[in-house]
């Protein structure tokens, strides 16, 4: 084995002890189902990207490919009655939270059967039955909203936790600062999850941030900070569990920094020329799905065939979703004025 190859190996390895912990705490079935979720997300995004190229999906469409371990690891540290809120790169979180892929795809297609009846689109997915609260497309805009959700559960003396996902580029918005301070002052059980995929559109973090270790931000609020390898599903899960437990038990906010990477452009219209292919290839050596595949085989939980089957099933799920979305109807034109207000007595014209 050359030096290079051995380095590859090292990079590919998951934190094995956390795998053991997961097996013990979650059981094999759950671990496998988390793995499946990652694969489903990836295949879903493949289809979303394809549909975009076919102009079936329009507008801004931000694929989650490469970051699957973040949503799956973190959301699986939550209870069903906990609350999830994310930004505009949220297909993955939606699926990890159990939203129906058919209805998510239909939403991307702008169809009435979509999770928000075609009103929200890719950037504004909501499914309240699953305690999935969006889909927010103004960078940083949902951070105080997340604090407010935690405020409401506290107000009601519930022990639910709110988990809020956002990109590393969002941390520079003033509302991050405002929300973080107030979350700490009001003792709000909100977990802020930074998915640090190195880029905000074409801007690498270090070019616009005075600090690159974003856990330092937490110090300005005496907030507890956690960090994990975002490409290691177990590390994300285990770290998130610690953070969620802390938030729930202490009723305090926490910050999690996830070191991840996106494989595709910022959105479907971004050719991503600001980074070279080598960098992407390099990052792919720690691909979250590949690493889990290796681990599952190593642990003899799965054989290669099983993995292929899972992948095939995920592909089918995704193409079924496209079929569903294709066949679904666009909203009635009458629905234009629905849901602007609870009671809609008037339209100004």
């Amino acid at each position: 084995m050359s030096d290079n190859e051995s380095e590859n190996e090292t990079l590919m390895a998951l934190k094995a002890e956390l795998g053991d912990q997961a097996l013990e705490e979650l059981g094999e079935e759950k671990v496998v189902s988390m793995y499946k979720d990652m694969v489903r997300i990836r295949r879903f995004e493949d289809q979303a990207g394809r549909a975009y190229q076919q102009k079936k999906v329009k507008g801004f469409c931000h694929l989650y490919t490469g970051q699957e371990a973040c949503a799956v690891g973190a959301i699986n540290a939550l209870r069903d009655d906990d609350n999830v809120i994310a930004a505009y790169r949220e297909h993955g979180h939606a699926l990890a939270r159990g939203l129906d892929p058919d209805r998510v795809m239909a939403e991307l297609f702008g169809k009435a059967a979509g999770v928000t009846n075609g009103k929200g689109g890719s950037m504004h997915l909501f499914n309240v039955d699953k305690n999935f609260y969006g889909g927010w497309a103004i960078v940083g805009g949902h951070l105080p909203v997340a604090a407010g959700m935690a405020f409401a559960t506290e107000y009601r003396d519930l022990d639910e936790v709110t988990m809020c996902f956002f990109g590393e580029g969002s941390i520079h918005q003033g509302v991050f600062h405002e929300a973080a301070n107030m979350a700490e002052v009001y003792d709000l059980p909100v977990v802020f999850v930074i998915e640090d995929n190195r880029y905000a559109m074409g801007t690498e973090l270090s070019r616009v941030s005075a600090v690159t270790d974003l856990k330092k931000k937490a110090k300005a609020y005496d907030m507890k900070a956690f960090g994990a390898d975002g490409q290691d599903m177990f590390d994300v899960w285990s770290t998130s569990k610690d953070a969620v437990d802390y938030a729930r038990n202490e009723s305090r906010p926490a910050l999690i920094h996830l070191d991840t990477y996106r494989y595709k452009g910022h959105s479907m219209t971004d050719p991503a020329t600001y980074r070279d292919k080598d960098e992407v290839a390099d990052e792919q050596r720690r691909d979250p799905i590949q690493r889990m595949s290796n681990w599952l085989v190593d642990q003899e939980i799965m054989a290669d065939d099983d993995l292929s089957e899972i992948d095939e099933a995920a592909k089918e799920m995704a193409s079924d979703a496209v079929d569903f979305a294709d066949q679904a109807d666009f909203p009635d034109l009458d629905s234009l004025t629905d849901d602007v207000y609870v009671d809609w007595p008037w339209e100004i014209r």
Partner: protein
Amino acid sequence: MSREITYRQALNEALFEEMHRDEDVFLMGEEVAEYDGAYKVSKGLLDEFGSDRVIDTPIAEAGFSGIGIGAAMMETRPVIEMMTFNFAILALDQILNNAAKLRSMSGGQLSCPIVIRGPGGAGGALGATHSQSLEAQYAHVPGLKVMMPSTPADAKGMLKTAIRDPDPVIFIESEVMYNFTGEAPDADEEYTIPVGSADIKREGSDCTVVTWSRVYHDAVDACETLEEEYDIDVDLVDLRSIRPFDKETIAESVKKTNRVVVVEEGWPHASVGSSISSWISRELFDFLDAPVGRVHQRDVPMPYAFNLEAESLPQAEDVVEAVKEATYYSF
């Protein structure tokens, strides 16, 4: 109506009553708790309801509005106090992009029953940054409702309605009016005023004046002068809600008088007054015997100097002049 209370007290009572009625209602903002409110509107609420429901914030308008929006999305009933609406500009993204759109973007799954309230308009020698009538920023935006009461009775009835409303309501008061007194319903009388309903506060047949909020009081003065000195009888429509606005009441009045002046406190361009005037000019075209008159602030940032401030703001005399112009107009 059996007693006189101040506009401040009316708001205070509305908050008390609604917080007693519904324990999901809470109040949040700068200085609302321990200080009893910068303008004392929340006086006594902390003592009555405790610090879980009456909550002081840091100076972070975007942040605490966002907290209110998130909490409203989870079906609580936040009342967010803006120390003044000049500072609400900092929260405008939260209000426009989150509160106003939440229901629509979620396909009706979520509502945002929040009230964002506080004083707007000029307060008296506060200078350019602190003397703005910014209701147009909200009236422009579908998904919001905007209410601006001018009297204690309206303030009370409308704030109660606003708090019960299932949609986000922007509720703009006035520093100058907090001490104004007026008739009000009995303390224990259940009293609410529907969103979008104007009130004819004075009947007349010569000219309609449409107005809202503080300058309503200048319009009242003007009406007296007009009656006494010029024998002109004004039908005075207090709009109360500016989104939605009460088209029926305006139309009825204008069909009677055939002349109308729209009076607002703020700047003229892309304003609520311009919009009301445009609507009247179009929809009541055949009923108008004169152009729709307008009274508004001069098109300048508010100066501090007391004489310049007065010169900049619309005054009762300006209303008198505009009504005279509208009524003397011959087609």
